[in-house]
């Protein structure tokens, strides 16, 4: 005989509630979570624009000029602004989540969360500075 209580398996009258399609509006952190997941679309958008830029660059100065002109249209300016805000949201939220995944021990003590978050911001600043320096130098 099995030790498993079979009566629970075939219980006929349990009530199972279905998850609403709007579950992500039920509390604020679910909404933030879904927004954070959505940011991936805008990260992809920037990647596609970048590929488009490379293609224009390969096709010569005329094509590149046209690409730059298109970027200056109100539609693209609006899209870029929205995408930039989402990517910023993406970076900041993920920076603040890194200490959850990365746990370092130094001399038997856990490195505090702010050090890990801070080093992300520091790396971001240094890299952005390096890019700005390279671009603005010439």
């Amino acid at each position, binding site marked *: 005989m099995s030790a498993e209580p079979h009566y*629970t*398996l075939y*219980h006929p*009258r*349990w*009530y*199972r*509630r279905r*998850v609403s399609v709007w*579950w*992500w509006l*039920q*509390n604020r*952190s*679910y909404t933030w*979570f879904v927004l954070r*997941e959505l940011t991936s679309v805008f990260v992809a958008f920037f990647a596609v624009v970048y590929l488009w830029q490379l293609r224009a660059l390969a096709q010569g100065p005329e094509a590149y000029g046209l690409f730059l002109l298109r970027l200056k249209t109100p539609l693209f300016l609006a899209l870029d602004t929205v995408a930039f805000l989402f990517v910023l949201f993406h970076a900041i939220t993920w920076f603040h*989540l890194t200490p*959850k*995944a*990365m*746990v370092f*021990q130094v001399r*038997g003590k856990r490195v505090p969360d702010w050090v890990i978050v801070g080093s992300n911001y520091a790396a971001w600043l240094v890299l952005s500075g390096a890019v700005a320096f390279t671009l603005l130098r010439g």
Partner: protein
Amino acid sequence: MPSTVALTVARYRPERESEPTFQTYEIPFRKDWVVLDALNHVKDELDGSLSFRWSCRMGVCGSCGMKVNGTPKLTCATFLSDYVPAPIRVEPLDYFPVVRDLVVDLTDFMRKLKQVKPWIIRTEEKPPAEGEYLQTPDQLDTYKQFSMCINCMLCYSACPIYGLEPSFIGPAAIALAQRYNMDSRDEGAAERLKILSEHDGIWQCTFVGECTKVCPKHVDPAGAIQQYKLTGATRWVKSLLLPWGTR
């Protein structure tokens, strides 16, 4: 402070109704009462047919988890005074089948917990005569947080992924697996990797983070899962680069 408070409780009596309804009881408000005291007052004085689980009344047994005003809580540690004068609404935990009133069925979790082998696994057991497996306080500290889990299921009720994908192993079971993986006396990490790194393991988690927020014992299951993702991914890369090394 008011002298009474309206306590709205979800009722489900399978022999009478096909889906839950709500019933409101007017109960005396006392500053030192928790929601569980209020439920016991209803059960003792107003309506003996109300069903709910409880045992220790001190946040240790993990039986009295319910949703209070929409948030998963241990009712023995949730004071009425945090809510009054607003009415209080008590519901069973989300995503588990409701057996009766506030009682849910936890068979699914028990099955999953067993799958992650939450016990110390040794490749070779040493005979008892050789003594116990020793551990330093520092070694204990690495997993102690995850060992505080009381299986109250608040984290499952807070996890929309578990609601949408019921096959997900879930926060508490993964945190408990990690508790044993990080134990210096344990050698079973490879055995647990199989179940944890499958589709229904860590990779179902999209890091909503609510499990950690609702945990009454500060276990941080979301942290445990993300740390394990890092371990899983590192092992996968290693097995790709050194296919002969991980066998």
